[in-house]
């Protein structure tokens, strides 16, 4: 499991990796294929492997109508990441390392929180937001979406932070660092991987959320892409190529963001922030 092996020895792994990825992404390819297919060819038998007779109608509609939604989704996703980490990291730290009373009970509550159907949460938020006037605001949606990721984030941080060697913390305490400084200068940098994971989850959940968006943000000017798609599902017709085109257009920037973010963080890790 170390680097610096001659590349010749790992090329087959790359090949295998590409193969797995291709297999995994086949449905995504199929979606892209449909996005270019004319309605009359949608259900052709046998199906067309490749859109020989493509139409760009779907993309034209999407680029014209859906770009603001895409921006909203990105904004909500990133906002949710920030909020989740700001809340979950200190909470996980407190639970894992500060020996709080009732930590176990709290842990259980967090687990139970995952079991509550999202609709129940959405209903609660609706009632509160009506009074606070937060309906149809991006901020409100970010707060709501982060309730999916925060309990999970706390659980994950707790699980990982309890694995941090106590000696590290004791050393810091001997240096006179308080709980907060220990957290900032030792625990947080060491938990970089966990932060990445939590951030990833927060982003993906916020990105794919439908229930909160449709409950809390339905009539806003800024609707996320998961709602934007419903524009193409009319009462009696379904514009498949527009739907699929929306999904393609929406997943490309998000995928790029994921790749770039991972590279960036991975670079930070190897630059020596953490010593294994």
């Amino acid at each position, binding site marked *: 499991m170390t680097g610096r092996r001659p590349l010749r020895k790992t090329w087959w792994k790359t090949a295998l*990796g590409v193969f797995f990825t291709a297999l995994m992404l086949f449905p*995504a390819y199929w979606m892209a294929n449909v996005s270019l297919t004319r309605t009359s060819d949608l259900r052709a038998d046998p199906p067309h492997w490749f859109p020989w007779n493509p139409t760009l109608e779907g993309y034209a509609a999407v680029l014209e109508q859906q770009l603001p939604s895409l921006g909203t989704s990105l904004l909500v996703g990133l906002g949710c990441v920030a909020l989740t980490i700001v809340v979950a990291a200190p909470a996980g730290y407190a639970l894992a390392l500060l020996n709080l009373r009732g930590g176990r009970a709290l842990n259980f509550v967090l687990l139970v929180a995952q079991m509550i159907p999202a609709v129940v949460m959405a209903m609660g938020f609706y009632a509160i937001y009506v009074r606070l006037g937060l309906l149809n605001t991006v901020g409100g949606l970010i707060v709501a979406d982060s309730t999916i990721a925060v309990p999970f984030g706390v659980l994950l941080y707790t699980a990982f932070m309890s694995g941090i060697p106590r000696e590290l913390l004791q050393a810091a305490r001997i240096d006179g660092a308080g709980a907060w400084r220990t957290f900032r200068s030792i625990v947080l940098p060491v938990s970089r991987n966990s932060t990445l994971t939590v951030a990833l989850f927060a982003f993906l959940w916020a990105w794919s959320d439908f229930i909160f968006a449709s409950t809390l943000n339905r009539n806003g000017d800024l609707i996320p892409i998961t709602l934007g798609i419903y524009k193409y599902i009319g009462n009696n017709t379904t514009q498949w190529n527009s739907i699929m085109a929306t999904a393609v257009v929406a997943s490309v920037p998000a995928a790029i963001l994921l790749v770039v973010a991972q590279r960036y963080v991975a670079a930070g890790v190897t630059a020596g922030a953490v010593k*294994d």
Partner: protein
Amino acid sequence: MHDYTIRAFVQGNAEFVGFDKYAEVFGSTTFPTALLNTAVFTLVSILFQYAAGLALAVFFRSGFRLSGVLRAMFLVPWLLPLIVSASTWAWMLSSENGIVNSVLGAFGVPQINWLTSPDTALLSVIVANIWLGIPFNLVILYSGLQNIPGELAEAASLDGAGAWKQFWSITFPLLRPVSAITLLLGLIYTLKVVDVIWVMTTGGPGNSTTTLAIWSYREAFGTGQPDFSPAAAVGNVLILIALVFGFLHLQLQHRQEGS
């Protein structure tokens, strides 16, 4: 539990019926089918999701050219709105014009009615659900692997342990807490799955892909006559199941910490 017909809902005068609704739910002919389907759907899904996620995490952890990019690509299924991915799966598995049957047909396999035969419908929605769940498992398990110090593995390989043995005797045990939480969360999320099954089969044909969650959804929204009482009763049964496993998890965790 009140008798929540929609009239009562609007007028706010639901009649208290105690546990009658539960008795109705448990006595229904749908209940055993739904319970069995839920068990099969959930267990098979999380088992395969976990196994695939773990294998892939180990694979990507070994580091090779493009591993980072490919790993990120694995998250793409998650970025797709559920209605899109579920429809795409339904499309690919369609009996007459699906790509899967078209490929199998090229090898001489006769048409398989993936979604429309009671024998294969459950299998089909499970496959789609596994596909959806792999990214989640991969992400958590990969970050779990990252937290296992490299020296341990190196020490083991100096002792001459093969990769296989090294994995089972060192990596896997160290990964146990992360595995436990992954499986538990997987269980909780899978119990709640509605969208995928609903879009692909609406719980059919007949009741062959009806899980408890689907049943609850159907009672509440799937007919023109919303009926929330049985929906809520079934929903509560689901939460109860999740709670039992939650307790079990804590119990195990407790025992582990004790030892």
